[in-house]
């Protein structure tokens, strides 16, 4: 699944530390780290909303998608 989490880019742009963001949105640093490295099955809408609020961005700024026709077969 070529959906990529580009959270690192936004964190760098906003000059925020992962630890602070994790604390603000109420998840553990480990969970945020797993999210940043794309090692999760998915992201809840409420987590996405909180991230967007804290990072002052849109969901598209955190997520990216590389077109892959094989996704239709998955």
């Amino acid at each position, binding site marked *: 699944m070529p959906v990529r989490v580009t959270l690192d880019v936004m964190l760098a742009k906003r000059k925020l530390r992962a630890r602070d963001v994790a604390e603000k949105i109420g*998840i553990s640093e480990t*969970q*945020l780290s*797993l*999210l940043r490295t794309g090692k*999760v*099955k*998915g*992201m*809840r809408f409420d*987590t996405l909303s909180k991230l967007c609020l804290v990072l002052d961005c849109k969901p598209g700024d955190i997520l990216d998608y590389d077109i892959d026709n094989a996704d239709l077969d998955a």
Partner: protein
Amino acid sequence: MSSWFQSPIATALRALVVLAAFLLVLERLDFFPASGAVADWIGLAAPAFYLWAFWSGAEIFAKTRSATDFGPALVSGLNRMGAGLMLGAWVAILAEPALRYLIDNGFTVMTGVRFEWTLANLALAFAGLTLLLLARRGRQIRAELDGFV
């Protein structure tokens, strides 16, 4: 406050279990006072498992009273309840009749297997199996959900 008293349903269920266990033992003492027959006490094996299942059910109410999700307490409670019902049913179906027969004849006739195929026992075994499968499915769903942040 201990989880024992947090849920009235759990407390009531536990009280019921203790009372039922007490009455079961009293029943054996009253009705078979002098015989001392071990075979009579074997009849307590299946109810003991059923009471364990009830107790596990009480734990579910005690530990998941405020929780809305399919948490570990619910999964483990369902698992133990299912195991209790299944074990109780299988003791009632297979172990109890066989043991009773062996003890009654003084272990002189060791051949043949005795079953007590009643609809109630089969229904309890099926209910126990269903709870076990539900608990297993719940654990899988929990693991799946934990993969979401």
